[in-house]
């Protein structure tokens, strides 16, 4: 069982705390703001933002805590945390915690500065799902759909890199749809221009996109319409590209991200009468 004993100022007890920490997990580097220390007598010390809480817990809880702490330290030292981390929870050591002391492994926190998109910027990045040709095709295609104008476009947003990552975990049918859409573009261009999309001059690339970028009917007098497959493939790729672009740092700036967390006051309608809401009313 666990219960709260007392709190004290860490700065006054710093030396002692540090020594105890070393004894508990020797050689491990300090991970703040949450560090759990083993004290003699089956007592745990939790250090949190300058104040510490001493709590007492069962031998089982201490063992489990140490195992978890060791895992946490391992993960932190091997590489920057990229995804879900199992961390110690306040459930165990917080003032609210009680008898059933072991933490849930489901708990998840994002440490300060956590930013998965940094991984996409690595100089040695290589596609994991696509081959080089598919990757290069996607870069060119994405830059046609969302070009650099006064503001950066899809290429600068590394849309291809994010979609490559996303595809590695998608369902098979989604992966297939993605690959087929890219293959359709190359197949249609080879038929039409005897060349893959990637190697066409820019004018021909755009000429081709104009054929597939808009709802496309093949119906004519006296004949039934058939589906034109290009539009469907284009729409799928466009949706992926749009999703990846407008969720990237570059894309968020495009829609008004100023680098801060969103906030403000919702002013709403301030018109005196309805005629002023808009031109049409």
């Amino acid at each position, binding site marked *: *069982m666990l*219960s709260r004993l007392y709190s004290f100022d860490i700065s006054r007890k710093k030396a002692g705390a540090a020594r105890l920490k070393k004894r508990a997990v020797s050689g491990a580097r300090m991970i703040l703001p949450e560090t759990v220390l083993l004290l003699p007598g089956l007592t745990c010390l939790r250090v949190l933002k300058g104040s510490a809480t001493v709590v007492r817990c069962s031998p089982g809880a201490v063992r489990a805590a140490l195992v978890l702490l060791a895992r946490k330290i391992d993960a932190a030292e091997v590489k920057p945390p990229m995804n879900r981390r199992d961390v110690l*929870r*306040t459930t165990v050591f*917080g*003032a*609210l*915690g*009680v*008898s*059933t002391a*072991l933490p*849930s492994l*489901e*708990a*998840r*926190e*994002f440490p300060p500065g956590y*930013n*998965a*998109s940094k991984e996409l910027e690595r100089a040695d990045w290589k596609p994991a799902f696509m081959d080089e040709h598919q990757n290069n095709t996607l870069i060119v295609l994405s830059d*046609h*759909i*969302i070009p650099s*104008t006064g503001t950066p476009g899809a290429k600068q947003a590394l849309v291809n890199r994010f979609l490559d*990552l*996303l595809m590695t*975990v*998608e369902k098979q049918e989604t992966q297939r749809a993605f690959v087929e859409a890219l293959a359709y573009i190359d197949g249609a261009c080879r038929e039409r221009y005897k060349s893959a999309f990637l190697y066409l001059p820019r004018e021909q690339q755009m000429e081709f*996109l104009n054929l597939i*970028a808009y*709802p496309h009917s093949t119906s004519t007098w006296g004949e039934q319409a058939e589906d034109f497959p290009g539009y469907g493939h284009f729409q799928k790729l466009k949706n992926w590209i*749009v*999703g990846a672009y*407008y*969720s990237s*740092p570059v894309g*968020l700036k*495009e*829609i*008004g*991200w*100023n680098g*801060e*967390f*969103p*906030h*403000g*006051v*919702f*002013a*709403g*309608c301030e*018109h005196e009468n*309805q005629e002023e*809401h*808009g*031109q*049409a*009313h």
Partner: protein
Amino acid sequence: MFQDPLSETYDAVVVGSGATGGWAAKRLSEAGLKVALLEAGRNVSPKEFTEHMPAFQLKYRNMSLEWLKSRPIQRQCYACMEYNYDWFVDDLKNPYSTPPDKPFTWQRLRIVGGRTLVWGRQSYRLSDLDFKAASHDGYGQNWPISYKDLAPYYDIVEDYVGISGASERNDALPDGHFLPPMKMSCGEVHLREQVAKRFGRTVTIGRTAILTQNHNGRQACHYCGPCERGCSTFSYFSSPFTTVKDALKTGKCRLITNAVVASVDMDPSTNRANGVTFIDGITRQTRNVRGKAVILCAQALESTRILLNSSTREHTQGLGNSSGLLGRGLMDHSTGAGAEGELTGFHEKPSPYSGPHRANGIYVIRYRNLAKGPQQKNFIRGYGFQGGATADFNFSAPGYGAAFKQAVKDGAYGISMGAFGESLARNDNFISIDPNLKDAWGIPALHISMTHDDNARAMHEDAAATAAEMLEAAGARNISITSKLAQPGMAIHELGTARMGDDPKTSVTGPYNQLHDVENVFVMDGGCFVSSGCQNPTLTMMALTVRACDHLVERFKRSSL
């Protein structure tokens, strides 16, 4: 000094720490009672909140369902996402069954605060049109209480929680003690004016448990938007940082986490409960906690499941089931019908990513089958709409290139409304224990059997048609409607299965939420609902809890418990 919390005998054992459990713990401990507050899940920390975290910081930017393999049911919930999925239950550990042709989506959290962490926050009072619905149209049963019985408790809850909204003096939706309302967009003001003029219906700003000014030590909303990812300023109401915190502050309440309650313990010599049995969620040990009263606030289905799993020699069909009605009368608001379109000619531009974002919309107050007025021929009861009209970035703009990029920024002015309809209490919509299914803690799991009926179907056709006529009246273009009902459970407003009433033959709980069969066991969550109304139910659940707790405190004072 280190007294084992399980060695004590509490005045009350409260099961569940969400909207109602938080209130029960607060109200009882502040009245001086010794309370054990049991939560099946772990504790939650504000450090887990991600409302300010841009999508690119997540590995899959909330675009992949890779994370949700363990949550095939929970992922149907709009609020379950890469940011917060671990707050939701692991479906593989928490199974339930349904008939093959009657799917039911059961969306739930096991964590301190429960669904108040991710709830929609819309907060509406019921009226006597709801409490006395059977008198109005002859269907089902009246509640054993009326609006005037609950009104003072609505006041208490609203004053504490902080509900922003506008008074409308509408009999079908009583006004409350409101904080200043959030503002409407130009399109919404226009809709309100046109709908009032053409149809005499009321479009009001959503009444929501989000603070529009500092209130009870919590800060006003800063309009960042995604409440369901947590709120670092606690500006929307969630129990861990309000009611549960208050309860713990009294020193009278112990929070016991990872306590998966299996059954209520009975003393056969007195026919009274003396505590509950729970499974330690981590060690899987079976434990008991003793109490003079047991208060179930585990969510309608979970509380009834506990009672059904508490059979004894005297109570062979589950505790509190002498009427045979325990588990019967499951309700969930019918939803899915509505209309959407575009408004043109408004000057408003999309709110930039950096805000402000209003996590609220408009509400269309029920206008069918009112106390005074025409009655519909093909359905009883009524529905309300949640909706909105705002400019937003137009990510589905056609074409490609610079023109597309500009079109996204220029935005589109969308208008939409979606219905929530009353769900009739029917005894053939029920839950029972599945004899062949247990959860990861060995506790027998539920079989849920529910469908929406012809009344709901007729109601939703009417809702779709009238939504379209209101959008049309507001000058919307490209209007499309849907009248298809979402599967039961999708409203996440599960109610009933332990309905209250005066007669033990036709109800499970009495007017103060106590079991007719066992006087010291209470169901203080949505399980006690007699009828569903069409209003979002959490505010009513909390008011019922406070009322029942005050009654319980009185009984303790009179020593009749």
